[in-house]
């Protein structure tokens, strides 16, 4: 009986998480368009619903009813596989991410995470690394020069930026003496990691921007020079899957930044529920991503590589040495 209850709780948590993550792009696209509009002294969507709140729903219906077009020369199997490969890893990563300690529902203590892996950080980076396959397959299978160029860029960009990103969190692991995300957050009860690890945070955040392929590092889908990059040939629901994965990765990078460097659900000064603190911090970083997008121009490709290898990599290595000397 207890086993069934425990299983039921896990299934419910997984279903809830998937539902939230799948629906998350709806408010986020609305928010992004609103922020874009107001930063450019426009209004953004205004016509569908109150202040355009139903606009994402209308867009979703449009994408669902559009023709699902596959180019004649495309590799049909890979073409169909790619959006799923791009979508699955960010969802899988969320299995290892804690949103809080526990809440009591009907007298039962329910944990706010699906699993507390003791190698959660390794798992997260390993699975995020898989996301690049969706992008590469998508660009390759479409058999279009823009798509191939976009996926080539993504490939090089992901490899260049995953290294400093991985190095940047080593300082955090040193501080917490653990790779479990739960222990990392618990270690930050008094002081957030960003105080001890400002360089680590900087490197992680910039690399995260590149990992989520947001401006100023969105070379994979640079609208100006590549059409739409790796998803140039995608339409309808498959395109929507790519968009969903992009937004989920954006939220994922924000969540990771909050957990690793900004104390997770530990609040300061104002006593709020821990989950609310967590969500507020994540919302701030999501806003920061959008703010960056409508402020900065895109980096050139050689600049992107130079930043990755000549700035971020030495910085992250120096960070490891300094934290090793100071905290040992």
């Amino acid at each position, binding site marked *: 009986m207890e086993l069934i209850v425990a299983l039921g709780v896990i299934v419910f948590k997984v279903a809830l998480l998937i539902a939230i993550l799948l629906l998350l792009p709806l408010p986020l696209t609305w928010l992004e368009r609103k922020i874009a509009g*107001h930063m450019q*002294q*426009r*209004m953004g969507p205004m016509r569908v619903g109150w202040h355009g709140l139903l606009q994402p729903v209308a867009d979703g219906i449009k994408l669902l009813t559009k023709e699902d077009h596959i180019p004649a020369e495309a590799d049909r199997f890979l073409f169909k596989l790619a959006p799923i490969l791009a979508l699955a890893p960010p969802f899988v990563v969320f299995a290892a991410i804690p949103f809080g300690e526990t809440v009591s529902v009907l007298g039962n203590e329910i944990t706010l995470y699906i699993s507390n892996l003791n190698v959660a950080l390794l798992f997260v980076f390993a699975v995020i690394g898989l996301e690049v396959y969706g992008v590469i397959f998508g660009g390759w299978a479409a058999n279009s020069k823009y798509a191939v160029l976009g996926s080539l860029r993504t490939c090089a960009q992901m490899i260049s930026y995953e290294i400093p990103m991985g190095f940047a969190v080593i300082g955090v692991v040193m501080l917490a003496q653990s790779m479990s995300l739960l222990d990392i957050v618990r270690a930050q009860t008094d002081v957030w990691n960003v105080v001890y690890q400002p360089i680590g945070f900087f490197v992680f955040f910039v690399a995260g921007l590149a990992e989520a392929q947001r401006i100023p590092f969105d070379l994979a889908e640079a609208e100006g020079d590549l059409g739409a990059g790796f998803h140039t040939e995608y339409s309808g629901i498959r395109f929507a899957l790519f968009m969903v994965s992009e937004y989920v990765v954006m939220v994922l990078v924000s969540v990771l930044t909050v957990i690793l460097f900004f104390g997770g659900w530990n609040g300061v000064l104002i006593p709020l529920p821990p989950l609310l603190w967590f969500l507020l911090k994540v919302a701030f970083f999501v806003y920061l991503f959008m703010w960056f997008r*409508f*402020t*900065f121009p895109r980096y050139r490709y050689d600049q992107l590589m130079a930043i990755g290898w000549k700035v971020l990599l030495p910085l992250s290595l120096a960070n490891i040495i300094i934290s090793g000397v100071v905290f040992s």
Partner: protein
Amino acid sequence: MSRALDKAGRWIGWAFFADLANGLALTFGYMFSRPVTMQYPDKEKWLPYSRYRGHHFLKRDDEGEIKCVACELCARICPCDCIEVVPYEDEKGNRRPAKFEIDTARCLFCGLCEDACPADAIALGQQYEFSSFSSRDLVIGRDDLLAKPGKAMTGGGVVAARLNTERDVLVEASEPRGYNWWRNIRRK
């Protein structure tokens, strides 16, 4: 000394991304400024200047009779030859237009017909929404011209467009000189 300080300040600014922070501050400021968008045509509508030359209209005198005496001066002066007037004699013995057609597809809205008219019968109003799917619909006859709102009748206002979902949407008439396009534009 101050030069060295300047240099040091610039270097510190560069190291801490002062230029990027400036850009972020600028966009953040713009985010809380008023948008310049005009929600045409269902929420807001441009109120033209009082001297704006829009759609023609024919005036009536105090007894409700058409003022036009069909002298055809407007047709003569029209630079693009878009007015056609055919006179007739009504029961009182006055010369009136039996046919008064303006081809607004050809009209260039110069207002010369208004200047030439000896009877103060034709004028250019402030209605500017009369696009159509067929150029034949743009030939406006006498009765339609009489029915068009004049400047005095609407107080310079704009009549509702065909696409309107909310009736009688007007820009606030507190700006008698017309819509101020620069109202919300930020200039340094």
